[in-house]
């Protein structure tokens, strides 16, 4: 019962914050709501015995990505931004499509039967500690994707520099 209540709080908070993120006209407010949203999602991860992912969620998402967003928002003329319309004219159509999609997806996942259980039971993880178990996997079985991820980050660095550096023309 307690866990359901706990989930209920987090779930409703997540939904409400998500809605606030996409509907606020002031982008700075959106970012702030998103920060709260990320903290709640991290809480949910903790609830699912995923401490490491929760930590990453806070460190990378809240700590890095949202800061980038805020940084970009400095470009904006916020006064101007608050005066203009925030939605496109045809937003009801978007709402309709989204709702219909939601109905379909919900009706499908309502009766979801998961696949077979693996060996990483709660007890196993408790014994080994979560970060260690994940880390071991990441550096052994998932070494290959891990290396690709490093390349993705490299491309991000190159790309960001190429696109944003001052000098815009060669020669």
């Amino acid at each position: 019962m307690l866990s359901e209540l706990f989930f209920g709080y987090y779930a409703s908070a997540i939904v409400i914050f998500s809605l606030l993120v996409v509907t606020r006209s002031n982008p700075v407010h959106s970012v702030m709501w998103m920060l709260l949203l990320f903290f709640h999602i991290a809480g949910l991860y903790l609830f699912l015995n995923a401490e490491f992912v929760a930590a990453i969620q806070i460190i990378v998402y809240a700590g890095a990505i949202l800061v980038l967003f805020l940084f970009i928002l400095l470009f904006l003329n916020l006064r101007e931004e608050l005066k203009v319309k925030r939605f496109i004219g045809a937003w009801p159509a978007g709402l309709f499509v989204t709702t219909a999609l939601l109905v379909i997806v919900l009706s499908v996942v309502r009766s979801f039967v998961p696949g077979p259980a693996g060996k990483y039971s709660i007890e196993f993880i408790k014994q080994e500690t979560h970060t260690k178990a994940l880390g071991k996997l990441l550096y052994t079985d998932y070494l290959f994707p891990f290396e690709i991820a490093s390349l993705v980050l490299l491309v991000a660095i190159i790309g960001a520099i190429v696109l944003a550096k001052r000098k815009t023309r060669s020669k």
Partner: protein
Amino acid sequence: MNNYLLIPFLPLAAFLINILFGRKYLKDNAHWVSILAVAGSWVVTVITLLDVLSGKVVNEDIYSWIVSGEFKVSVGFLIDQLTAVMLVVVTTCSALIHIYSVGYMQGDKGYYRFFAYLSLFTFCMLMLVMANNFLQLYFGWEGVGLCSYFLIGYYFDKKPASDAGKKAFIVNRFGDFGFGLGIIMIFLTFGTVYYEPVFSQAKVFAVQTINFLGYDVHLMTLIALLLFCGSIGKSAQMPLHVWLPDAMEGPTPVSALIHAATMVTAGVFLVARCSPIFSLSETALMIVALTGAITSLFAATIGLVQNDIKRIIAYSTISQLGYMFLAAGVGAYTAGMFHLYTHAFFKALLFLCAGSVMHAMSGELDLQKMGGLKKYMPITYWTMLFASLSIAGVPGFAGFFSKDEILWLAYSGQSPVGKFVWAIGTVVAFLTAFYSFRLIFLTFHGKFRGTYEQEHHLHESPKAMTIPLIILCIGAVASGWIGIPHLLGGGEHFTEFLTPVLGHPEAHGTHAEEWLVMAISIIAGFSGVGLAALFYLVKTDIPVMLAQKFNATYKVLWNKYYVDELYSFIIVRPTIWTAKNILIGVTDAKIIEAIVNGIPKGIGEFSRILRKVQTGLLQRYAAIMALGVLIIMAVMLLR
């Protein structure tokens, strides 16, 4: 890798070199490439012929172009006796005519283009005769048609030339449609388009009938007749002969090579090649024989009264092609091939002589404006005289032997129409001799009837032109000697040579009958020559008198039996009339507009609508994506 591959691919290489580098680099030297290539082909042909004579027959796939399931398209070659004969004819004529063209086409602005096309034609023709499957045959068939179209319309700034090109193309389309259907029928029946399995299995289907348009049709008859449709178009037989006389608008070497010696004989070659199919259907053979006989009579009578030198020879070609079909139709494929072979020499020679005359006469074609050219151009005169003797069937010349063999086999063979077509053939032999010598006498004898400038300009043609004439003349005289009948102490080597492919024609007759048939044809030939001499050398007023007396007949002949007019009346004019009155007048903007303009217009309109959907707005794009997801999910989950 076999060296016979050089035969078709040397001319192809020449074509590519000329078309790519001709305009800029080769210019007036373009002929060297083509001539060397064709001469090379000729040399390899001779080697190949020797191989075949020693009994070596090749049938192999060189390259599989498309293989997909049962369907296979490949480049494959069949070199047997029949192919060898065709190779000799094609490469010899082609080589000589390439050389002749150097003199004839000198100074023409499209010089390189002319040689490029000529080489391309040679390539296609060789692919046609060397194919070992029907699709490659069809490729060559369409290829020669295309080259013929280009070359007839070579002087494309002259309207009659471009019209003639189009006419040839359209008329041939009728025939090729049937031919294409025939190949499809073969594929459906046999499951392959290769000669070898088709011909060896043909007997299995000998009595099979299929339901065609509601009638039970004998399968082999249907296939044979569909193939014959192609032959009719390409070999200018009735009723699709109308394109060939008009095709004379092209340069004369083209007429000689394509419209006399090689391409037009492709129809005969097709029938001979498919003889295992034709032999299974008496009906089809009878139709082939009758078509040939009637065409040959019909064209010969028209030839009697024409005045355009090239057109006379064109009608003579149609008539002689009819002769070959006549032979094939009575089952004497070897005799038909023999005539094809001798005909190639004397007919090419006739055309080239005509070209030489035209050259001297600055392009004049009207017989009535010539005369007495003998003393100005002796080589042309003598070679043309020999060619005419050959076509007239004077004993000893090539044409005599092949013609005699056809007539004898028609007379003595088992065909139910044999005697009938023999009678027609004999009449045609007489007519042929007559109009051929009318041509000779009006051109070379008597007084010159042209203008003073023309007379002043008369001269013998350059060496590049006369040497091919002389070589061809040897062929026109001597090429028949390899087929001298047993009756005259010969060996009938030609027939023996082709027997493995085409079978031995059956003859049921006594020696006496054979002598009789030969005598009749000789008499027919000589009387034709004699009558021509009487009319055009001795009593020159008779033709005019006759023309006046039999005015109606003369008019019919002069107007070529009004076939063009008939077609114009029953096909062309009704089409235009319907177009004008019913289509435009009555249903105008309603139906036709809707169909003819409506579809493109509708597509264009749709295109503009699609452009409007593409607004450039990011959210719109995303919304359409999401809508797509929604629709797919809804359809997939709700069904």
